[in-house]
């Protein structure tokens, strides 16, 4: 055992139980590595390469909570994870999950942060000090009296980290903490993690697809491919191949808009501040519009207005020149296809084929058209290798996301709206999606994408609309040569 080893993997392999799709069963294969005290490790690799499984081994979720077979041993500060429970390791290893909503279970901010210290039996006065100090350190003081359900994604992400860091674990493990964060929030989070590392010597292991943001922060980069450690060394900038920028098309602003929002205002039930405040926007055929803005600025709310899932308090929305006030969502869906954020809320088919045929069948498309669309979408999104008979529920997070996008693309609507489509996608999958959007626009379709991913935005945008606090504060077309 190396003296300064924080985490040590010795010949570690992990296999999921036989119920999973065959190619997903072996997720780690013969991993040998040592993470030393105080290191800042960036863990990269394509979707399904085993990053989450690797991290789950660090705090004992594997072998104690996740079904499957672990071979080899994982040591955390000299303790074999097989010999201690997850709770025993909690004071040493803090784990921040990929989706803050999977982690936050209290209804109020302070209660959430205090949970860990309560479980460790700290006296109330110590918990009080720790919570106050941490809220200040993470610049979350203003959220102390808030309900967790009222927080934006970025705020929830910070809260999830606060609730783990509060017990000052020696090791912090984070699973894609930057996904869903805008560039400023991501930079703020990395700054915070850097401070924790410098001030308390905390060892940090972080998995991330957005390597361009993390490479300069990390002291070491480990790359997993097909469950094997394919790279281990100094981080390189850029770490991942950059997305190629789409050849710019001539802006179609002169043609008539296909979707028009006029002075749209919307308030969520029970809220005084409007989520959309006098928004006017026109989407044009052949143009890819990127909707940018900080977390909680109203991007998802705006997209849900395009297909009638939300109706404006005041203002008018027209699709193909027709006011959609009295149209049902299903009627509007003939023109506007919307890909929602969470694939799990959508997928239900027994097979991928059934999932992809669901929406066009609802629109009454003939079988031969559906078959042709499915083939085309599978090829363009690179999901052909998954087969058509596999259950979408057995796929990895990134694969589910791609199937979810594909299941809306098969509708063949003239307008496509995508809400954070790159969540969980690796650079290769993002590149394919960018190509699909470029092709759709070249074919005269209007595409609008809400995303925090600056690199993806650069790759697809003909036009960038910036929204802040429910108002459009910027609207510019991207020059032909690039951004």
């Amino acid at each position: 055992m190396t003296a300064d080893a924080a985490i040590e993997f010795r010949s570690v392999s992990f296999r999921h139980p036989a119920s999973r799709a065959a190619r997903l069963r072996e997720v780690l294969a013969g991993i040998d590595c040592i993470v030393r005290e105080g290191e800042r490790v960036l863990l990269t690799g394509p979707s399904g390469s085993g990053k989450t499984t690797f991290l789950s081994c660090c705090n004992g979720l594997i072998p104690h909570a996740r079904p499957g077979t672990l071979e080899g041993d994982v040591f955390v500060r000299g303790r074999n994870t097989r010999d201690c429970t997850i709770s025993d390791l909690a004071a040493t290893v803090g784990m921040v999950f990929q989706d803050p909503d999977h982690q936050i279970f209290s209804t109020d901010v302070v209660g959430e942060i205090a949970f860990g210290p309560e479980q460790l039996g700290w006296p109330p006065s110590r918990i009080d000090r720790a919570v106050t100090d941490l809220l200040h350190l993470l610049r979350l003081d203003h959220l102390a009296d808030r309900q967790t359900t009222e927080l934006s994604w970025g705020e929830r992400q910070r809260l999830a980290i606060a609730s783990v860091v509060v017990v000052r674990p020696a090791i912090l493990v984070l699973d894609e903490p930057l996904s869903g964060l805008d560039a400023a929030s991501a930079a703020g989070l990395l700054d915070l993690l850097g401070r924790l590392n410098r001030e308390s010597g905390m060892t940090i292991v972080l998995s991330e697809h957005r390597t361009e943001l993390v490479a300069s922060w990390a002291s070491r980069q480990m790359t997993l491919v097909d469950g094997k450690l394919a790279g281990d060394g100094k981080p390189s900038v850029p770490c991942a191949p950059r997305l190629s920028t789409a050849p710019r098309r001539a802006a179609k602003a002169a043609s008539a808009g296909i979707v028009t929002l006029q002075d749209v205002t919307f308030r969520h039930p029970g809220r005084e501040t409007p989520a959309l405040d006098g928004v006017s926007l026109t989407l044009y055929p052949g143009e890819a519009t990127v909707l940018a803005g900080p977390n909680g600025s109203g991007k998802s709310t705006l997209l849900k207005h395009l297909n009638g899932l939300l109706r404006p308090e005041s203002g008018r929305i027209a699709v193909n020149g027709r006011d959609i006030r009295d149209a049902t969502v299903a009627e509007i869906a003939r023109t506007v296809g919307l890909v929602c954020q969470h694939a799990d809320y959508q997928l239900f088919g027994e097979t991928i084929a059934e999932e992809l045929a669901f929406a066009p069948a609802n629109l009454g498309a003939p079988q031969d058209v559906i078959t042709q669309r499915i083939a085309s979408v599978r090829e363009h999104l690179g999901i052909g290798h998954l087969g058509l008979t596999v259950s979408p529920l057995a796929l990895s997070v990134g694969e589910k996301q791609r199937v979810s996008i594909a299941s809306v693309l098969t509708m063949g609507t003239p307008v496509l709206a995508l809400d954070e489509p790159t969540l969980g996608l690796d650079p290769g999958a993002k590149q394919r999606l960018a190509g699909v959007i470029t092709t759709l626009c070249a074919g005269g379709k209007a595409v609008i994408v809400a995303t925090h991913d600056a690199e993806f935005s650069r790759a697809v945008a003909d036009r960038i609309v910036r929204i802040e606090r429910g108002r459009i504060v910027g609207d510019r077309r991207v020059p032909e040569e690039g951004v």
Partner: protein
Amino acid sequence: MTAGDGRSRRRRTHRAVGYIPEDSFLHRLDPRTKLLTLIVISIAAFATTSPFRTAFLFAFVVGLAVAAGLARPFSRSLLLLLPLLIFILVIDGLFPRETWGPVYFSAQVGPFTPEVTLGGLLFSAAMGIRILVIGGMSFLFVMTTSYTDFVAGLRTSRLPPVIAFSLGYALKSMTALTEDLRNIMDAQRSRALEFDRGALIKNRRKLMALGIPMTVSVLNRARYVTEAMQSRGFASTPKPTCYRPPRPGKCDVLLIIVLVVSILGIAILPV
């Protein structure tokens, strides 16, 4: 059905039952006081078959809802009880366990002999109101008690942490499930699935499109919460700290007094 109708249905689903973050006197009460009130009211409702006594109990529950400024969400939540209410009124009206007075209707239908009497009607009314009393008080409890407060209350009552957190999670799930249902319906509507046309129960595709993601969501949520709690040291010490234990105040004492007086008053009603 117009889009507007669909929208209003969606809002009802969203807000029918679940914690409502407000600052009413019911919200500020010690959760143990509310739990005690719920238990006492439920026992009282079960202890009587008089429609007048149960009606007074229901008036007490409605009074609490109005005083807390929750009349609208409370009345919306009662609509959820409507199918059960109709079922009980029909069954107890035709086949009452207590029957007396003039017979308004009597028949032989196969092996059954339904009979409508004055006593039977009063009995079925009492059973229906009983459902409203217990259901209404339960909804009020859910609407005004946060997960954190509820768990703290149970832990202060020396309930084992595993049971306290399990009960708390069950309470929280009521809110989470309605939120999940809304998101799933949004995702499927976006793929041109019409929920507003035709009976949902008769359409296998619609049921699958809702049921499977809901099942996956419930199972996943339980797994995520378990893992998140264990990862933060749940049950690592036999006596975890209760950081902010609830403390009963003047309102708690006042409610208990009003409750006791009301129950005694209802008990001695000459009915």
